[in-house]
């Protein structure tokens, strides 16, 4: 479904991606783990078209995304829950969700998805007329996820959805990720919480300094000595 072939990309002078190759198959959860600054977020930004590769190919459902503007990439079925949530703080919760469905037409199906998102996160329904900026961190994370789901993506990119959240919220978020996946949505998940991420993923990649250094089935990575030492706390 999504394939990256030897992708290189720069942020100004910084060589952020130094030959990233990975694959997400239909309906899969794939997780990307690694230290801060390893290039995980850059990988997601490259898929979304906000960081353009200097070399290599990004192919989604058979099409090269190199020339596709980022807003059109959403239309093709890829949406993102970005690092730091980045909800529109001066738009209401409802307006944030409407913006998530910006590329779609068809009132009825949008309304259905809105109801589905409100079902996943009932607190958002309660706060639908509140400004996004007034929500707590956990609620903002739910809103960011809900907003990305409103695009009805076939591939969802998630960047650190559990970062900075209370343990109770972390469990909710992972439960929701599982539910989203059972609807057939493929997920490329970047996580600090490697243990949680590997436990729901079918495949995992480990990044270091802009490169993929290890890839395997999630269950094998869980028992891999190096991974345990570096990312699973021994």
């Amino acid at each position, binding site marked *: 479904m999504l394939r990256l072939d030897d992708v290189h990309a720069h942020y100004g002078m910084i060589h952020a991606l130094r030959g990233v190759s990975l694959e997400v198959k239909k309906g899969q959860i794939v997780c990307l783990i690694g230290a801060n600054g390893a290039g995980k977020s850059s990988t997601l930004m490259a898929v*979304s*078209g*906000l960081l353009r590769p200097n070399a290599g190919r990004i192919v989604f459902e058979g099409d090269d995304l190199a020339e596709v*503007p*980022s*807003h*059109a990439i*959403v*239309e093709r079925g890829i*949406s*993102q829950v*970005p690092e730091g949530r*980045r909800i*529109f*703080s*001066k*738009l209401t919760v409802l*307006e944030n969700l*409407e*913006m*998530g469905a*910006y*590329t779609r037409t068809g009132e009825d199906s949008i309304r259905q998805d809105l109801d589905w998102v409100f079902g996943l996160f009932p607190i958002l329904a309660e706060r639908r007329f509140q400004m996004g900026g007034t929500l707590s961190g956990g609620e903002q994370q739910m809103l960011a996820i809900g*907003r*990305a789901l409103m*695009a009805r993506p076939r591939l969802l990119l998630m960047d650190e959805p559990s970062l900075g959240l209370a343990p109770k919220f972390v469990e909710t978020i992972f439960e929701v990720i599982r539910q989203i996946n059972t609807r057939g949505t493929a997920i490329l998940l970047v996580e600090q919480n490697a243990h949680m991420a590997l436990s729901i993923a079918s495949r995992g990649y480990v990044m270091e300094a802009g490169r993929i250094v290890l890839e395997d089935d999630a269950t094998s990575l869980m028992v891999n000595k190096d991974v345990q030492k570096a990312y699973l706390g021994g």
Partner: protein
Amino acid sequence: MLVQQLINGLTLGSVYALIALGYTMVYGIIELINFAHGEIYMLGAYMGIITFGLLTTLHLTFPTSGAALLIMMVMAMLFCGACGITIERLAYRPLRGASRLAPLISALGVSIFLQNFVMLAQGPRDKGFPHLFAGEGIDLFGSRISAIQMFIMATSVLMMAALQLLVHRTKIGKAMRATAQDMQMASLVGIDVDRVISATFLIGSALAGVAGIMVGMYYGLINFFIGYIAGIKAFTAAVLGGIGNIPGAMLGGLLLGLIEALGAGYISSEYKDVFAFAILVLVLIFRPSGLLGKDISRRV
């Protein structure tokens, strides 16, 4: 005397507000002070005269001058809107991602170009604006509020209400607010940011075009240089209200108009521009974020 000055101030202020909206909307989205915006207003006034001339030469007669005025306003809005989009496309978009100074200088260049173009095409002398209002106006607490003044205030209020509806109720309006807050995130939800920016220039420029017609009618004379002072005044109004803030631009415009009129009435009319620019300086020193603006530190 006081009531008369208040009426004059509100009339002038509502025009400043209309022009200030264009500054503030563009700044809100691409953080550019569009110094060519005053010239758009000037173009609107000229488009009014040109349209009126066309209607006259075509011997199109109207049951009322109101119909002619409506056509002039629509033409000015369309023409100015098209100019705004074109200017953004040619002079600002290629510089996106460059240093902040580059588009600013480009805007000054566009402003100088338009002034000189109009001077050459339409001549350097004042042109008379057609008289379209015969109305007497009404008396209010011993002061007179003329038909033109009522028309200017009513039209401005209508335009601002329409803008508020557009920005808060329509899909493109919500996309404009989203883009103003976080342009990258806007494209991550699928908003075509270039289209939103074009729409912003279209709307801001159309409002300036209407303002041009109204001021042309109010003073009866226009020339190629009217955009300069009006532009700086409207910019002051936008800064006073909080640049980037739409209700702020409306409030700033009205306040500036009132301050100018009261200053002109009670101190000296020769100093009326001094009041406007003294306010600009004072606001920039003591409250750079403006009356309704917030968190300017993040933007600077």
